[in-house]
């Protein structure tokens, strides 16, 4: 394995490519897509999405065929088409799987760099802490947002294609669903980023993320019960993410709008601050 004599051609021109934050985010995204974990969640989300689309088509079919009218009435209980149905596009099994995916993928984002002591090397390049943190947050929140966007846009497009404006999904539904998706994604991104920055390994990051989700629900429940005010339930991340689509559709949710806004800001602020503190270049000791 010889090492050849160095030859130094003219210095290459730098600053040609993407900003460092996008370079780091793209690297993490490609890495996750190549992992078995990424493929597993990919299949899972596509599966759930296909079931949702099939449900939507079946729903439309029953609404549009007279001979199926009785069946339609019988199934209205679990296939409603009002605001509740719109809000359900971001709910149930999908959000649960999304939390699991966010904890598994996001929990390792910073922790992996801590475990392998990669951060000092990154900061020795022209990369600031804002670039690093921005990249991680962009990825941790961007991935759930992309998945949720698919869950909004595909059913919406299918509904428009098969029944136009009279379809089961309201033509204006994305205007409420996408902001809800953005808020949920930001929550997931900030929490998993904070959890990951507290951990020393990806597995510990996953544990931290799950612990925070479960712990926040327990804390909200205890405070709500002790103080007799259900607003405290907004501290629970599961409750909060389930509440946002319903709140934006004007439906009654487990928590009201004001506590939901407060708790969302608190969680995003708290966990991103922790991540910022734990990823300073001063923390990146050689």
């Amino acid at each position: 394995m010889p090492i050849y004599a160095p030859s130094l051609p003219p210095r290459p021109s730098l600053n040609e490519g993407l900003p460092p934050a996008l370079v780091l985010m793209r690297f993490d995204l490609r890495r996750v897509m190549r992992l078995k974990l990424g493929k597993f969640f990919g299949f899972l989300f596509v599966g759930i999405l296909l079931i949702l689309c099939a449900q939507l088509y079946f729903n439309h079919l029953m609404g549009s065929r007279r001979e199926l009218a009785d069946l339609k009435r019988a199934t209205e209980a679990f296939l409603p088409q009002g605001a509740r149905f719109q809000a359900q596009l971001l709910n149930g099994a999908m959000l649960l799987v999304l939390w699991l995916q966010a904890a598994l993928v996001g929990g390792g984002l910073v922790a992996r760099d801590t475990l392998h002591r990669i951060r000092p090397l990154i900061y020795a390049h022209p990369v600031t802490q804002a670039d690093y943190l921005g990249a991680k947050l962009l990825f941790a929140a961007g991935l759930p947002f992309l998945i949720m966007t698919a869950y909004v846009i595909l059913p919406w497009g299918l509904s428009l294609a098969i029944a136009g404006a009279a379809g089961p999904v309201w033509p204006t539904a994305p205007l409420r669903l996408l902001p809800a998706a953005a808020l949920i994604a930001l929550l997931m991104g900030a929490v998993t980023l904070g959890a990951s920055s507290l951990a020393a390994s990806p597995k510990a990051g996953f544990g931290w993320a799950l612990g925070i989700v479960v712990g926040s629900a327990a804390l909200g429940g205890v405070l709500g019960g002790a103080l007799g005010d259900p607003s405290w339930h907004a501290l629970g991340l599961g409750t909060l993410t389930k509440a946002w689509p319903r709140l934006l559709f004007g439906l009654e949710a487990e928590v009201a709008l004001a506590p939901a806004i407060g708790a969302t800001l608190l969680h995003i602020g708290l966990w991103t601050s922790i991540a910022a503190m734990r990823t300073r270049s001063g923390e990146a000791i050689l």
Partner: protein
Amino acid sequence: MIRLERASLRYGDILGLSPTSFELPDGGGITGLLGPNGAGKSSLIQLLSGLLPPSGGEVRIFGETPFRNPAVLARIGLVPEGDRFPAGLRADRWLRMMGRLSGLEGATLDQALRRCLALTGMAERARMPFAAMSKGMRQRIRLAQALLHEPTLLILDEPFNGLDPEARLQLMDLLRGLAQGGTRVLVSSHILGEVAQLTDRILLLFRGRLLAEGSVPEIRELLDRHPVELRVGAESAVAVARWAVEQGELVSLRMEEGGAIVAVRNPRTFLPRLQDAVADGILPLRTLDPLDLNLDAVFQYLTKDHA
């Protein structure tokens, strides 16, 4: 190129580096950063590579402060100690990402990657995952990473750790070549012989203090003032003692079973004479064991000097 003016570094209450001043000129060359573990080498490297701001004083590289300064960082290549990558990752993917962080893209990045992989002898193995690479191969990849953007200042933290002798020599050749090409190379190590093989300029650190700065002969001269203890094993301890007391360098003599422990100044003149005595049959030598020629002892001497 590098100028430190009473630069110090604290980690809370712990002093990582006492106020330190030195200057390294522009142009290529190799400087050894020498000191035992905990001497402050990594602290100094963190200041130079812009990872931390000095707690006091001033650090200037290319006339500018390196901390959070992309203009300076883009001209520095850092090879940290130990692996700095997830084990399952492929080396070329890692290198591409690092190249992109330095602002390389497209054909320029491809070119830089080919050049650095050829330079480090890893062109054929770059598509291997890190987990399948030997320690030496991973070290070469770390070096390739630091060379991608053709840095003017290359900083290596303990680069010879874990390398076999052949890989060490190859790495030394490569560093010499880079230095001749105009790159300023700063190599940290805790092994004096290793650095002495590579360079003539040394910065000697101990307990967070810069103890000495100069060429290897200058530092050797400094060390020669201190007695070195040697255990001389011989068939007759009396014969050793009889020969040793006639030597001008002898400071002390302690008899023990099967030989003697002698403390001598200027071992560089004493040892050839000992060799001659053995060759002439004057001294029935069986073993010769330097007791305090390691770097720790050297630092102890220098610390006493500074006290």
